[in-house]
């Protein structure tokens, strides 16, 4: 096998006092071999990013490496001075970040940003730099490179921006590329393209790539070797094949088991019950005007003639990429956004034309669970108040509402004593449970879950999905489940509606959609799911 280009030995990174553990990275050793892709996998807070940032000397204030070495080309990266490190950065070790928009200067043309990399190291003349920028853009597969070179970052899509960031990282032909969750902020189809690009370039240039991710699907797509991290330690390392098919450590097994499976069965399709929510010909167009003198109007058809039905006791998934209008649809159903045209009939009443008191009363039947567990709870209200406010607003006496809140907390798997505590004392998953309790407090018949598990780690995600499925059965709820993650949709939904650019592309039973998609776009989405081939191969082998 090839030589290690970079080796980390017994690395310790200390966290500031008062953190939940003494070391962010605790006695971690691994080698990065020439020409391989090493994936470092772990949940949030596992220390996976910290170890990469230590290599580049990019640790945040108060977090310091306190032991061990990172050897590269005979040097210990931890002992280098800033100027020495600066020479290495970019030239020998390149880095790609998670959020391409934040990694680019919004007010600088793309070619200038790439040229800046050469300039920083005092290489080439101005015109050569510009020529190289165009060549690099071509290499990362941006259409019409000369034109793209003159563009500003905001004129590009998320995937194109990430390509520019990759071009910048590749500019000086580094030996090592560190990629910190480079596809997490991207849509699934774009993610598939970027993963392929990274793999192709890695092969062509023979680089060593250290790829940090939380997503085992991505690991299956790209990794040669894998190291699994848990609370600062590497619990297991080995070839991708070995880790994915025969994990040794309990934690790895638990993580792999928590990944929602794509396997669906035809038996799940429920017998049709009475329709509870009927959406008919819904439209919503956003108009934003820009410019003071010459007004240029940007028109976005967020929802374009959508009709669908939710039956009693059913879970309807709404899937689509960002900008497909799925979240706008959810907000239109509860009238957080006013639709332009169309009707939403909830248990016979037309929601879309209610006003004032009548709307307030009707909203009791339809509640929402939000995406961001940090933004969806008022930081200055106690958990008891957060849950009981709804019933109190509808005239339930305070004492009764609080007793109910305590009951609901136990129902969602939290301790009733949580009632007195404040949101910041809870973890993301626990906060999401509080959000669910709040939605249930008004005894709704329909719950709209907008990306309700997207912000959670995969093991927490599995628990919350289980909870939702269980509550749905026990309380006879109907669920509209909005998600970008087809794996999640496959586990929880009875039927799935696929949206693209505001239009409903396809709607059908989950099993049908996954096994016999009718539309090309649906097939495209399914093919882009990371780790899909591997899973199918495993299914074929098992049967």
């Amino acid at each position, binding site marked *: 096998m090839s030589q290690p280009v970079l080796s980390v030995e017994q690395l310790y990174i200390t966290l500031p006092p008062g953190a939940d553990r003494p070391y962010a990275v605790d006695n971690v050793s691994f080698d990065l071999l020439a020409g391989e892709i090493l994936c470092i996998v772990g949940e949030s807070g596992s220390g996976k990013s910290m170890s990469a940032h230590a290599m580049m000397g990019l640790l945040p204030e108060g977090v310091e490496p306190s032991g061990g070495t990172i050897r590269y080309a005979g040097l210990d990266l931890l002992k280098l001075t800033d100027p020495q490190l600066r020479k290495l950065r970019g030239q020998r070790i390149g880095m790609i970040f998670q959020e391409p928009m934040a990694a680019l200067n919004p007010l600088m043309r793309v070619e200038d940003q790439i040229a800046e990399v050469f300039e920083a190291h005092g290489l080439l003349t101005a015109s050569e730099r510009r020529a190289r920028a165009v060549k690099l853009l071509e290499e990362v597969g941006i259409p019409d490179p000369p034109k793209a070179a003159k563009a500003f970052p905001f004129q590009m899509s998320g995937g194109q921006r990430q390509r520019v960031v990759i071009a910048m990282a590749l500019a000086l032909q580094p030996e090592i590329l560190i990629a910190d969750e480079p596809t997490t902020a991207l849509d699934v189809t774009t993610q598939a393209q970027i993963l392929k690009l990274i793999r192709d370039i890695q092969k062509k240039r023979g680089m060593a790539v250290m790829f940090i991710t939380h997503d085992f699907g991505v690991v299956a797509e790209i990794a040669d070797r894998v190291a699994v991290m848990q609370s600062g330690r590497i619990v297991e390392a080995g070839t991708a094949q070995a880790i994915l098919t025969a994990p040794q450590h309990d934690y790895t097994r638990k993580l792999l088991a928590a990944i929602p499976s794509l396997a669906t069965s035809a038996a799940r399709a429920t017998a049709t019950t009475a329709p509870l929510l009927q959406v008919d010909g819904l439209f919503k167009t956003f108009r934003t005007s820009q410019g003071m003198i010459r007004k240029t109007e940007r028109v976005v058809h967020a929802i374009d003639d959508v009709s669908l039905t939710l039956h009693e006791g059913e879970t309807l998934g709404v899937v689509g990429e960002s900008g497909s209008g799925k979240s706008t649809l959810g907000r239109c159903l509860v009238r957080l956004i006013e639709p332009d045209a169309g009707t939403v009939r909830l248990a016979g009443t037309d929601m879309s034309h209610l006003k004032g008191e009548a709307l*307030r009363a009707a909203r009791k039947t*339809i*509640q929402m669970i939000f995406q961001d567990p940090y933004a*969806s709870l*008022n930081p200055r209200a106690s958990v008891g108040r957060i849950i009981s406010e709804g019933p109190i*607003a*509808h005239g339930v006496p305070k004492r009764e509402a609080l007793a109910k809140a305590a009951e609901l907390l136990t129902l969602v798997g939290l301790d009733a004593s949580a009632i007195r505590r404040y949101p910041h004392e809870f973890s993301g998953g626990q906060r999401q449970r509080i959000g669910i309790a*709040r939605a249930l*407090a008004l005894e709704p018949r329909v719950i709209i879950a907008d990306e309700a598990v997207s912000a959670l780690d995969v093991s927490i995600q599995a628990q919350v999905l289980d909870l939702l499925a269980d509550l749905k059965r026990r309380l006879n709820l109907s669920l509209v489940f909005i998600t970008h993650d087809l794996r999640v949709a496959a586990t929880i939904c009875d039927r799935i509606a696929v949206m693209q650019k505001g239009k409903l592309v396809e709607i059908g039973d989950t099993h049908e959609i996954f096994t016999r998609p009718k539309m090309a776009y649906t097939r495209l989405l399914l093919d882009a799911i990371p780790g899909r081939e591997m899973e199918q191969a495993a299914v074929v082998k098992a049967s």
Partner: protein
Amino acid sequence: MRDFWNRFSQHKGAVLGLVFLTIVVTIAFVTPALFPVSPWKMVQRPFLPPFTIDRFPLGTDALGRDVLAGLAYGAQVSLLIGLISTAAALLIGIPIGLVAGYFGGRTDDVMMRFTEFFQTVPSFALAIVLVAIFQPSIKSIIAAIGIVSWPPVARLVRGEVLSLRSREYVEAAILSGQTHFTIITRQILPNTLSPIIVLASLMVATAILLESSLSFMGLGDPNLMSWGYMIGAARTVIRQAWWLSFFPGIAILLTVLALNLIGEGLNDALNPRLSRRVK
């Protein structure tokens, strides 16, 4: 709360400011006991230089009145006017900002044009006109300062509300059927408090300055001894008797500086993420 105090006390200037302000407040409270004689009463020969007689360490003014007693009574007046007029400005500015930011659209337009109307008139000129119309008295001065200083409050609150309004917990509150009033007062207002507190501490300082300027122009309450009045009365004799304007001037400078330092410390303590003192 302990966290808050820890962060506040890291800001050395703010602690110093707080100490100084505490001293000024204490003086204001014990003044009647310390100086039972009215500050308007003539007690010694006019133009007594400072540090010549132990009983009147800061000397006397053109009419033989005790400068130190004037400073102490002036502290009372300055703090009182600073605090009450700031409260008045908050009382006008916060509701306007809340309503404009929450309801948006036409309501927002109307209220912001109204606010801009006040912002475009130079505030000091407006304050002079108001006090001149209503006769100089402590009430009219407080009203005038309140009326000219609320627009920044309204703007700040509106901006905060605009960003809070689209938070998911506010959406959740709308869905749970809470009334607009409940949402504004219980969900949104508590989360706008920290910037308001910071702004208010700085506004007290501005109000003290405004009052001093008004008194300097001869538009102070004729029955109250204030720092601005003392400087104003001494301006004609500034070359013969420097101490008459110097000591009240220093008092204003230090009080305003103390309030500004406290404001900065509060800002760092209440918004730890935005703190400029990254170290």
